[in-house]
């Protein structure tokens, strides 16, 4: 049975070579004419090399992650004479064979005969950097817009199109399938939070953590009336630290760090299927006892979903106390317009080595975690901020 | 509508009529030139100064049932064929009420269904259209008619001239081709236009009759053109008339014609046919100076009124336009890029 060469096709004007990024079939597989065999990547697009005719894959001589020139032989298919004729391949090909010397299989080699390679590219290119689930055709975009969906919603859909793209057919199948499953309506709060978190996540976020002793805080709290929540201590400490160095709460816009003009700090309040973030304005300028009443007011308003417009928005950092859920540690996500979010975990009695006494002593410890936009500051600056907050929280009477 | 001069007038009457058309044409042309210099006209202005005798001679020998395809310098012939002055003025001034409704301008005007064909710019192209009109009328059984197409000597170089004259000859159509050899096609002298010693010789090549005439000579024009038209009407096939003159203006009013040598202007060829006609009529006592003066002032007033009227009329409104070139409305592709 004739052996038909699988050759690197002419992929587009001015493209001379492409790199193998994925083999979709293996030797021994039976394939059909036109079936996708190998995924290749040029500097412009991801495309596929397809089977010149139906048959059995005899061998691949091309290797993963290597580049091959247009016209190079990448493998062989064993096909019947009829099949070869059907696809016009019964004429002898000028392509070089696999088992000749390695000159063929080298980077940047050119087709030695210098002839134009026919046929031209068999697959239509999917734009580079957009292959896979994130590429949306105009029709898919239009359809998703109709349904109020966004690119993030595509993540769960398997794509059957070129380079794994999600075709409209794939999409409609997915939607039809969804209809068969239990659906509950997402509240508008949920949708809003989803959008905010998606937008925030477009940045490179990192988290650092530090355990802080909160014995002093708990003692100080007993002496206050009304009693400030633990999170308020963290908030006030954060505000004071930011007043000392506001760059870490700045925003990166292009090549400028935009410093905050006021240290307004928000704090997360869980409210029915979502999170609200009321704000304490100028938290660096008022001592703790002056912030308590306002803080408690805002928490109550938030829980009742009655926050006035001027009580939210415009904050430069947020504090979240997930310790109330019993969590000791978490990596919160900053609001999309902020660089920092400070998390406070639940306090626990932990053994702490006391060098002077030469033994473990019990202390109340809670984890502070700081998630930050890594474009604005690095681990060092984040660590220093946390250390400062920790120091401030160990002297609560000064807050 | 068109009101041509009927054949039943005595020769003298016909010559007087022709002269009056020449005079009006000259004054109309002067008016257009003045408007052009005053910046009142969009696009070009093309005058027929020096060609009035030849052109008027054509118009006065045609009947309403004949066909006429005049060219750039035939203001006199158009008037003689019955075109009202207001048509010419409206077309030059772009009035929406003119025969071309602003879609074409200056000398590209006519009324096709009245046998008065509007020219397109490609020289020679109108001759086969005249052939077609004659062809159709013959198919309908109409006889005794004539079609006149006017050309300059430059147009005799075109393929269209050749094809059309040949076609008319093969079909034995009553076509009269009047070639005004005014020595220049824009700036191109006849020495660069053709190599034969006499354009009239071409007639032999096509198997048609020819006539030659000094186009500065008013009475000769009347006689020769009249004879050629009569021959065609009588069924002797296409007639080629070659008339010789000097163009007494630029190709258009934008052209100062400085390439025309003064010697030519001062030669017999450079005579003004209007003056020649006037002298002829005065000598024959068909008219006197006072009469001519009256005609002149009447014509000036008529022209002024037409210009005043046309200037008050609306220009075409692009928002009222049906922007389609097909008469079959339902076949219009209304895909506007707004």
């Amino acid at each position, binding site marked *: 049975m004739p052996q038909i060469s699988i050759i690197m096709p002419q992929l587009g004007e001015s493209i001379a070579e492409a790199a193998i990024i994925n083999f979709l079939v293996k030797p021994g597989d039976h394939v059909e004419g036109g079936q996708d065999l190998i995924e290749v990547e040029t500097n412009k697009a991801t495309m596929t090399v397809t089977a010149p005719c139906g048959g059995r894959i005899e061998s691949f001589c091309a290797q993963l992650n290597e580049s091959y020139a247009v016209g190079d032989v990448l493998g062989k298919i064993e096909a019947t004479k009829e099949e070869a004729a059907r696809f016009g391949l019964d004429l002898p090909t000028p392509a070089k064979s696999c088992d000749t010397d390695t000159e063929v299989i080298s980077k940047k080699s050119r087709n030695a005969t210098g002839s134009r390679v026919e046929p031209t590219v068999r697959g*239509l290119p999917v734009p580079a950097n957009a292959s896979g689930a994130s590429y949306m055709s105009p029709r898919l975009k239009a359809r998703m817009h109709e349904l109020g969906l966004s690119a993030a919603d595509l993540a769960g859909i398997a794509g059957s199109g070129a380079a794994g793209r999600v075709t409209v057919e794939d999409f409609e199948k997915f939607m039809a399938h969804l209809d068969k499953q239990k659906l509950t309506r997402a509240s508008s709060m949920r949708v809003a939070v989803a959008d905010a978190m998606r937008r925030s996540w477009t940045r490179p976020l990192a988290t650092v953590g530090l355990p802080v002793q909160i014995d002093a805080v708990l003692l100080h709290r007993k002496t206050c009336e009304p009693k400030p929540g633990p999170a308020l201590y963290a908030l006030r400490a954060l505000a004071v630290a930011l007043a000392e160095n506001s760059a870490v709460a700045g925003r990166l816009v292009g090549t400028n760090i935009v410093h905050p003009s006021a240290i307004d700090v928000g704090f997360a309040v869980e409210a029915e299927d979502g999170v609200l973030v009321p704000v304490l304005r100028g938290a660096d300028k008022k001592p703790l006892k002056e912030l308590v009443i306002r803080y408690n007011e805002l928490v109550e308003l938030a829980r009742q979903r009655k926050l006035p417009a001027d009580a939210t928005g415009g904050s430069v950092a947020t504090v979240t106390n997930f310790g109330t859920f019993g969590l000791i540690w978490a990596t919160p996500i900053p609001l999309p317009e902020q660089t920092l979010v400070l998390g406070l975990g639940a306090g626990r009695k932990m053994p702490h080595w006391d060098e002077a006494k030469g033994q473990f002593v019990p202390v109340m410890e809670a984890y502070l975690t700081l998630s930050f936009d890594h474009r604005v500051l690095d681990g060092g600056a984040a660590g220093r901020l946390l250390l400062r907050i920790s120091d401030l929280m160990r002297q609560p009477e000064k807050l | 509508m068109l009101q041509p001069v009927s054949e039943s007038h005595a020769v003298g009457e016909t010559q007087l009529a022709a002269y009056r058309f020449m005079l009006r044409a000259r004054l109309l042309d002067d008016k257009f030139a003045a408007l052009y210099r005053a910046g009142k006209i969009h696009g070009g202005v093309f005058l027929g100064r020096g060609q009035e005798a030849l052109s008027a001679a054509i118009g006065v020998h045609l009947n309403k049932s004949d066909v006429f395809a005049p060219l750039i310098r035939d203001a006199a012939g158009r008037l003689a064929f019955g075109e009202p002055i207001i048509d010419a003025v409206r077309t030059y001034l772009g009035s929406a009420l003119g025969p071309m409704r602003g879609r074409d301008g200056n000398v590209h005007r006519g009324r*096709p269904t009245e046998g008065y064909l509007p020219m397109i710019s490609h020289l020679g192209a109108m001759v086969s259209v005249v052939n077609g009109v004659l062809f159709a*009328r013959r198919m309908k059984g109409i006889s005794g008619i004539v079609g006149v197409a006017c050309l300059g000597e430059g147009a005799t170089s075109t393929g269209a001239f050749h094809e059309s004259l040949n076609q008319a000859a093969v079909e034995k159509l009553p076509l009269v081709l009047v070639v005004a050899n005014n020595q220049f096609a824009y700036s191109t002298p006849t020495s660069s236009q053709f190599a034969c010693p006499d354009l009239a010789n071409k007639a032999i090549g096509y198997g048609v009759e020819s006539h030659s005439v000094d186009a500065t000579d008013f009475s000769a024009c009347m006689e020769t053109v009249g004879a050629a038209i009569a021959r065609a009407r009588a069924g002797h096939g296409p007639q080629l008339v070659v008339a010789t003159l000097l163009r007494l203006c630029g190709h258009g009013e934008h052209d100062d014609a400085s390439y025309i040598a003064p010697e030519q202007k001062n030669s017999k060829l450079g005579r003004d046919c209007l003056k020649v006609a006037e002298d002829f009529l005065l000598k024959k006592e068909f008219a006197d100076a006072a009469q001519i003066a009256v005609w002149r002032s009447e014509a000036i007033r008529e022209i002024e009124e037409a210009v005043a009227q046309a200037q008050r009329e609306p220009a075409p409104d692009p928002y009222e336009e049906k922007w389609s070139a097909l008469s079959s409305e339902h076949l219009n592709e209304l895909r506007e890029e707004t």
Partner: protein
Amino acid sequence: MAGDAGDLGVGCWMLDVGCFPFIPHMSITYLEAIREAQAHALRDDPRVFIYGQDVGAFGGAFKATKNLQKEFPGRVLDAPISEDAMIGLAVGTAIEGMRPIIEMQFADFSTVAFNQIVNQASTLFWRTNVPCPITVRLPFGGTSGSGPFHSQCLEAIYAHYPGLVVLTPATVEDAYSMLLSAVAIDDPVIFCEHKFLYYHLKAEKLPSEALPIGKARIAREGRDLTIVTYSAMVHEALAAADELATEGWQVEVVDLRSIKPLDTDTVVASVARTGRLLCVGEAWPWGGVTAEVIARVSAESYGLLDAPPQRLNAKDTPVPYHPNLWAAHRPTARSVAAAARKLIRF
């Protein structure tokens, strides 16, 4: 009169037919259909006449007017080799109310008459309000061995000019009914008859009704891909669709029928069903009908496309003489199928 009914743009010419002409053949070719339409027009309307080279006693280079001069003396007339003058004469007769059919011996020669077609005929109505009801018949398209000057497809060139109607029938039935409509239309019509289809395409009988001019036809229904094409390429597209059906794909084929006016609505409705568009034309790529269709769909219905719209045309060289070269020069069922597969797999 047949002419008046034609203004309605529907196949209303049939209303005037009292008795259907009896054709004694069992089948009728595309060429015979054109001859029958001309006979019908000559018979029904004394304003119609035919003018062209060798059309008289000889019956025309392709025999499209065979015996018509005998049946209609004085109405089928031989012209000298003067395409420019032929069209100029046609315009003159149209001004006088006649309805001339001008036969160009080959579409390729119509360029000698280009000036008269695009500057005289197509502008007459716009400039003067006097309609120009001429029909110019162009034998167009390639056949084996015809070479660069007997194979050209000029529909896009003429469609570019305002004031012209351009028709490209792909079937025997359309060749008949659309030529009758062309004569009835009051505007200049460029009627493109495909030379390959002349003798190769047969039908059982002539139609008794027809889609109006300006409507495209769904030649084959499908849901995976739309091929928009016209004239001989419709048959290549149908053959390609058959081949793809064996691979499990249903391809929809749209026969444009008229290039100008172009039925964008039918094309868009098809792309709405399939999301994928392949335009196929026998003419050259630059500014062709395929470019026009894609431009319209992309501009007006971008959100219907699930894949980039593609086109397949002849290679950008003059049409070659040798059959080997000619076979590779223009789209064939095989190359149409290959292009379709590419698009389906996107």
